């Protein structure tokens, strides 16, 4: 009984495989590469701009560039443009810091109807919350380990 059940399941899975549209792997990879690379180049453009126009450098430069990229990501999400880019680019739009901004604004807009505090402000952190939690936790861990290393040796 169980064997025949497995056999049917296997047949069914094979059938699904043959019928469902195959996502073109190389095409999605190429698109992610293209859009991700372009977004990083825009970031590099702002790096040059701030470096030469405002004379920033080091951590300050990196911080202002990421702030501008987050501004752009949030702005384009608000206009509904970023989701269209996302449909084309997949991972190419998720991984850059603009995608982080998108993950903040997108659920916030969606849950706006539940109010400005428990809807908008709370839902901003549905995806960004875990990122901040793991980011801060890992930085504390790294800080403690390095503090230990510096003070023991």
């Amino acid at each position, binding site marked *: 009984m169980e064997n025949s059940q497995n056999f049917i399941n296997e047949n069914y899975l094979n059938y699904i495989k043959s019928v469902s549209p195959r*996502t073109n792997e190389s095409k999605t*990879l190429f698109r992610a590469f293209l859009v991700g690379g372009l977004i*990083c180049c825009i970031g590099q453009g702002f790096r040059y701009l701030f470096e030469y126009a405002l004379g920033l450098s080091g951590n300050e430069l990196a911080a202002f560039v*990421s*702030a501008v990229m987050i501004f752009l990501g949030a702005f384009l999400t608000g206009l509904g443009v970023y989701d269209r880019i996302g449909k084309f680019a*997949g991972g190419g739009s998720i991984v850059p810091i603009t995608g982080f901004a998108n993950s903040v604004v997108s659920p916030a807009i969606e849950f706006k109807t539940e109010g400005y505090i428990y809807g908008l402000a709370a839902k901003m952190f549905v995806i960004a919350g875990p990122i901040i939690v793991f*980011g801060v936790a890992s*930085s504390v861990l790294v800080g403690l380990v390095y503090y230990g290393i510096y003070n023991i040796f």
Partner: protein
Amino acid sequence: MEIVLMLLKVFAVGGVICAFAQLLINYTKLTAGKILVYFLLAGAVLQAVGLYQYVVDFAGAGATVPISGFGYLLSKGAMEGAKKGLFEALTGGITAAGMGITAAIVFGYLFALFSKSRSKKN
């Protein structure tokens, strides 16, 4: 010429990081949120063992704009703080990443406030 070469490096490294994320999406069905967390942690760990700095020196924004660059910044801040003292070791990470987090919260709230939901149209 130097700028063109740099932009090529930025494009290549940033593109490869994003293509790797796409590879994970294609083969593992990870959601966007999990991919962001894993890439952030990867950047933090690579910086903690001293490797990510080389990628940043080589490719600039190609390494700092992806979310792994955010993890890099958190680790870098903590490592620099640890040289000064315990307080800086604990706060260094979030201090370095403070601008990004502040921008995400302030711009995120503002743009969400002034945007209308579009999900019903599609």
